[in-house]
């Protein structure tokens, strides 16, 4: 009996905290939505959304950030999938070092990373201890700058990408799949692309969507390297407009919601947190 009365009180207690949590989650979103609909006096309208989406700056920066995100996802996958696969299959002793490196990516704040990249790649690169110049400063050309931005983003997304892929790799029997494919005459490329990747669909999708959320929201590295990305644009818009930024903020919330929702559905498990803080 005592246990049940305790349980009832516990429910009340839980309900209290849950309500508080729901309010904390919902209120800022509701406020943003509400504000974004009030561009016209005494009238609810979607005008702020129309204006925001019609701005050529929005389309340019949003498309640019999406392209960056796609390239970052590809680079991340090409880097992480074979590495994680090889560690599982042949090189378990490298696990610790690789995990250490991915943790290091968590330790270096984005702003430090940004200035580090500028300081290394903003100057001509020489062979160490000589004056032989390998390349001019990579940040002089748009291609070079975009390349460095993508590499920076890949580093930012590395911890989450690695964890997603490695978790997926753990649930499949890499050794058996590899031996079976080899006995059927497959080469390494075929094994990874046609056997391992399809088995990792859920992890790849969740790693990709987390990377997407990071890249589209990222403002630190993109503003240090001065590339026309979406978040710096949104920030600038907020300097001289009121309703359109609110509209875009709410829209980007929906975008993140969609990404995390898909992760929830395909993995049925726990998505992780990252984000451009």
């Amino acid at each position: 009996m005592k246990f049940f009365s305790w349980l009832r009180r516990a429910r009340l207690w839980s309900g209290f905290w849950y309500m508080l949590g729901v309010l904390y989650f919902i209120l800022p979103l509701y406020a943003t939505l509400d504000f974004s609909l009030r561009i016209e006096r005494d009238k609810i309208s979607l005008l702020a959304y129309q204006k925001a989406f019609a701005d050529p700056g929005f389309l340019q920066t949003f498309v640019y950030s999406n392209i960056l995100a796609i390239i970052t996802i590809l680079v991340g996958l090409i880097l992480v999938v074979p590495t994680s696969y090889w560690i599982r299959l042949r090189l378990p002793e490298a696990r610790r070092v690789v995990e250490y490196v991915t943790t290091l990516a968590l330790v270096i704040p984005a702003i430090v990373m940004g200035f580090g990249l500028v300081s290394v790649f903003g100057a001509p690169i020489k062979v160490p201890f000589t004056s032989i110049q390998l390349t001019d400063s990579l940040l002089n050309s748009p291609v070079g700058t975009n390349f460095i931005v993508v590499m920076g983003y890949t580093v930012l997304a590395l911890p989450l990408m690695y964890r997603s892929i490695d978790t997926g790799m753990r649930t499949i029997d890499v050794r058996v799949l590899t031996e079976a494919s080899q006995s059927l005459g497959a080469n390494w490329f075929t094994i990874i692309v046609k056997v391992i990747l399809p088995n990792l669909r859920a992890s790849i999708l969740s790693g990709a969507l987390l990377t997407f959320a990071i890249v589209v929201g990222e403002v630190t590295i993109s503003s240090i390297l001065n590339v026309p990305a979406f978040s710096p644009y949104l920030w600038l818009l907020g300097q001289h407009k009121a309703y359109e930024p609110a509209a875009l903020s709410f829209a980007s919330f929906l975008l993140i919601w969609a990404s995390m929702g898909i992760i929830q559905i395909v993995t049925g498990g726990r998505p992780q947190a990252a984000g451009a803080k």
Partner: protein
Amino acid sequence: MAQTALPASRSTTPPVNAKRWLGVLPFFLFAILFLIWPSARLMIDAFLDSQGRFTLANLVELFQNQTIVSSYLLSIQISAVTALGGGIFGFFLAYSVTIGGLPKVFRSMLITFSAVASNFAGVPLAFAFVATLGRTGFITAVLKNVFGLNIYTAGFNLYSFLGLSLTYMYFQFPLMVLIMAPALDSLKNEWREAAENLGATVFQYWWHVALPILMPSILGTMFLLFANSFGAYATAYALTGGSLPLITIQLRAQISGDVLHNPSLGYAMAMGMVIIMAVSTTGYIWLQSRSERWLK
């Protein structure tokens, strides 16, 4: 290539073979080029003056310059407050959907929401809080019109320590929920039953059994939350426009600003940040590994 790798049946002692390490070479090459080299470069630059000569002056100034010391302290304070606040709030939320007896649906809703909120940071988050608690924000207006309370004349300001803390909380407590919910799941029912059979009260069970088991996990995650907000830049900048001198904001002003411009000092500040981040991340990893003793 397939032929050489054919006899892959598990040999108990794999031959020490440098070739196997070639498989992870691209990963390490990438890490060295774009993670280790840039960070190491800043660390080295922290010891150089503007002429490129060795000096300890930047490090000394780190401790002597009052502005820098106070911006470190401000960042540490805000990280500690939001880690503690977010940690406690997140713990109770995780509790409510695990052993707190709320229906299962509530749990999956909370977890999804937490995943979204912990990724909803930076510029959009700042704008959302302006719309909520800014001068004309939704809650500000409701409090004024319905309760007759003007929080701004009462001393509240969104662009202050308290305001930024409330904003950071939006990505802090969800992270706690995401990590604590599985930890709370692994509290064994037998432990509670054993405690009850021995006549323990609910308080005694929590104080002597559950909390000591959960403590490494709780503290560890708070370390993670600390690091999470210590390295934050975008949210604070978008919200306060740099008026709240956090270390990240001062760092940027020092390296690329117009007014303060002493990059070497900025690099030393960056090094200090990395050290604090490393300590707090190490705390997280160490405590997390300790918590696995009981919680699997």
